[in-house]
């Protein structure tokens, strides 16, 4: 990789920006287009660019496949946890307004929480798929 100085410099400029944009899409989803699903894919796209330039081994040192698998499950569990949390507080499954004293605040809190769960799951799943495809050797 060391010989492609243009690619190296441009990627170092672009990858952090793409990741920040992913976080923006994630946490600004209530005000602008976007949400967990899009953010997860964009985040993984940045990671794939890194992998294409520096190799699978370097990428798996940053986020190992085992971590990606765990995160995929954690995202779904976070979503379900918000559902059960609202049940425990006396509402229906995924009825967020009971989470906080103020109805609106509760709904917003619940939406941000489940969007985070979706984002984590989608990013981890996309990464897992990419690892599975890219890590296979040609036979």
């Amino acid at each position, binding site marked *: 990789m060391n010989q492609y100085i243009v690619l190296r410099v441009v990627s170092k400029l672009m990858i952090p920006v793409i990741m920040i944009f992913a976080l923006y899409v994630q946490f600004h989803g209530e005000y602008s287009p976007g*949400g967990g699903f899009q953010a997860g894919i964009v985040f993984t*796209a940045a990671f794939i660019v890194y992998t294409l330039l520096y190799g699978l081994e370097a990428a*798996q040192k940053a986020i190992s496949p085992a971590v990606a698998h765990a995160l995929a499950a954690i995202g*779904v569990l976070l979503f379900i946890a918000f559902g059960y949390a609202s049940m425990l507080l006396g509402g229906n*499954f995924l009825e967020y307004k009971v989470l906080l004293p103020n109805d609106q605040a509760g709904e917003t809190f619940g939406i941000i929480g489940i969007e985070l769960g979706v984002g984590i799951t989608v990013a981890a799943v996309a990464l897992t798929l990419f690892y599975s*495809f890219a*890590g296979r050797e040609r036979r």
Partner: protein
Amino acid sequence: MIDIVLLTFLVVVGVAIVRVRNLLAVTMLTGIYSLLVAILFVLLDAVDVALTEAAVGAGLLVILMLATIALTTRKEKVHAARQNAVAFVVVSVTGAALIYATLDMPPFGDPEAPAHVHLSPRFTQDSPEEIGIPNMVTSVLASYRGIDTLGEAVVIFAAAVGVLLVLGTGTVRRRRRSEDDGEEAREQP
């Protein structure tokens, strides 16, 4: 006008995808197809969907297909084309039935359409007060239809589990495994 240009491009790209035999070129064309569809979604004011289509269709999907091509072959094998009359009839009848079914749908943008007389007003008028956030797509997706979204998240998770079972984890190993043990030797790191 721009709709017609974009739809024409879509048809051209679609035909090209079917005709071209070089799979690398087909992969690029699929990405272009997704971008065109994303532009159409923007023109229809469905920005959330457009963002998804651009990220998944033009980004992730192309990468996964490229990875697959790297593992298999770049050229599509041409089978001796055998005309099958039954298949042609089945496809034609199904297509005609689908087109006939669209005649029952309300015209595009009809304000009297069932979806626009009680569902849309309910969401557009009440959701800012009930949920307290301006993006109604997010309110519907995450709150009114929360269980649907949970289902989607679980489906995505299941997809990953399926791919892991079929393809393995893809962990890069320092030490090359011996060549003859083939499929296994891909246990968790």
